């Protein structure tokens, strides 16, 4: 056990013995030179196109003036952040963002997995492929059309109310917003998202199944002992990444769906920033909010990664 010497190593351990460090490194380079050669273009890509522009993050700490540029604009320190934190709605915005995200995590994350498992259980191949194809179709319909349908279905005199002979104003009720938002999202994307898991299932060695069948395992045991462990690495990694997206609830669909009567549950960080942008196009403000979100997301990711490394052995690093 060695202690970390840099903060980077706390997060991404190198596991090197202190002595003979240079020798270890040069040996590694020699042994794996092809691997490093492969890695080089990828790292270069990230360096140029992602780290290159990263200086722009300081916009969050400036009063950005496009004509003066990033380095010519006045420094305002934490003013933009304070503007955001001082909003009367700050707490509510955070709560709504997290609430929607967690609801989507609890229901929307497992749904494609379950779908993939169910599709996998089908015996007849043509039907299997039909189900898979049909379920991914709504993914391609634009969100404007999907919300348009929803507004029509859930209107007071719309389909849903007619079906159940009720008169509930779904689209104007804050109590219903999250369910409608998350539910419609699952409906639209579950098929598409299941593709990754189907592919993971497809890479499982079929001989494992044969062996299990010979041992007399029924389909439930096969699923439990073969399929699920087979896709577990994929599931875990995607779950870690999903934790790193907790604060990222986009505004596009919400803007189409919400109205002031549902602000209580529907107004999230991104929609608030959007409305503020109508009053004053303010790069700095949205950059500051974005940085805030990213910092929280990243911290969550690191935490999730660590926990996962301990519990399951799978992790990003």
């Amino acid at each position, binding site marked *: 056990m060695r202690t970390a010497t840099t903060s980077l190593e706390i997060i991404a351990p190198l596991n090197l013995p202190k002595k003979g460090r240079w020798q270890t490194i040069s040996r590694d380079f020699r042994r794996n030179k092809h*691997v490093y050669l492969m890695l080089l273009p990828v790292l270069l890509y990230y360096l140029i196109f992602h780290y290159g*522009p990263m200086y*722009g993050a300081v916009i969050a700490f400036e009063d950005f003036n496009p004509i003066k540029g990033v380095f010519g604009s006045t420094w305002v320190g934490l003013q933009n952040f304070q503007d955001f934190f001082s909003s009367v709605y700050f707490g509510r915005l955070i709560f709504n963002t997290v609430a929607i995200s967690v609801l989507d995590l609890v229901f929307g994350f497992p749904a494609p997995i379950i779908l993939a498992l169910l599709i996998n259980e089908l*015996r007849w191949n043509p039907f299997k*492929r039909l189900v898979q194809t049909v379920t991914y179709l709504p993914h391609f319909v634009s969100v404007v059309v*999907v919300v348009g349908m929803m507004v029509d*279905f859930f209107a007071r005199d719309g389909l849903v109310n007619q079906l159940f002979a009720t008169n509930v104003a779904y689209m104007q009720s804050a109590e219903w917003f999250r369910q409608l938002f998350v539910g419609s999202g699952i409906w639209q994307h579950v098929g598409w998202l299941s593709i990754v898991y189907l592919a*993971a299932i*497809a890479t499982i060695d079929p001989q494992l199944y044969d062996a299990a069948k010979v041992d007399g395992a029924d389909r439930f045991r096969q699923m439990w002992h073969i399929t699920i462990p087979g896709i577990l690495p994929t599931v875990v990694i995607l779950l870690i990444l999903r934790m790193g997206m907790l604060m990222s609830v986009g505004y596009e669909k919400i803007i189409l769906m919400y109205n002031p009567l549902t602000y209580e549950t529907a107004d999230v960080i991104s929609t608030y920033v959007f409305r503020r942008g109508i009053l004053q196009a303010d790069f700095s403000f949205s950059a500051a909010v974005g940085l805030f979100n990213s910092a929280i997301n*990243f911290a969550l990711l690191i935490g999730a990664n660590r926990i996962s490394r301990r519990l399951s052995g799978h992790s990003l690093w």
Partner: protein
Amino acid sequence: MVATALRPRRIRHKESSGERLFGFGTVLFLVALMGVTIYPLIYVLFASLSNAAELTQHRGLLFAPLSFTFEAYRRVLENPLILTGYRNTLFIVIVGTALNVFLTALGAYALSRRNVLLRNPAMFFIVFTMFFSGGLIPTYLLVGQTLHLQNTLWALIIPGAVQTLNLIIMRTAFQGVPVALEEAARIDGANDWTILFRIFLPLSWPVVAVMILFYGVAHWNSFFSALVYIRERDLYPLQLVLREILISSNVQNMATDVSSGDVLAIGETIKYATIIVATLPILLVYPYLQRYFVKGVTIGAIKE
């Protein structure tokens, strides 16, 4: 070490009643799910073939086109930019996806190697960029001005050469390949390149197919980069062309020209026609990719 296709050997075993019930329930559930998920596209299809004025009046479910007409498609496909739109998008999809898959495979393989020292720091280096970026203006200045990619299709391909999410998915898949295979190959004297291209990739066709699908569809649907970097309308990719048609036909809705009331509402049906025009090619190509990741024919590896 060699991957071959096996004819599936059916090992029969007696299904319990619990299993049969489960199977039956699954089918029932999936049929219901299909019914619900196919509806949006059916609606879009029928709406695109409907008379616009009637569509405006219509509320609720749509089970057939209203007064069947191709008017919306005529409007969309007659636009002079449609052909160039398809051409540009095809270029981006083919060249872009090839570049994407190649680089992603390289990176995923490298990052999945267990005994590589820089592995963890490299992962951190890469994943960090998922969270922190410089924003639109610095990126625009870099790509457009410093690299002079402004107003070229390369601006739509190179800045997005690797998507971190896809890289991670592929790495996870590569990590799942049994170590024994790799070791056997090394004993035979293969180097990493051979291992990657002769063993890992053929074994991971499902994931490669998914990569092609994800990257391909992303390129096909992309329009934001084009909005930022493309100036000449001849270089507009398909989505941008469709977006313009949509916007200009919606505003057309606003015209006061009374004599052509039908013509005005056409914006509605054009909206749906553009979705079909954009999605149909994907739907046509999809089955070719699908068979790789919906397990049916057994493509597996025989050890040794």
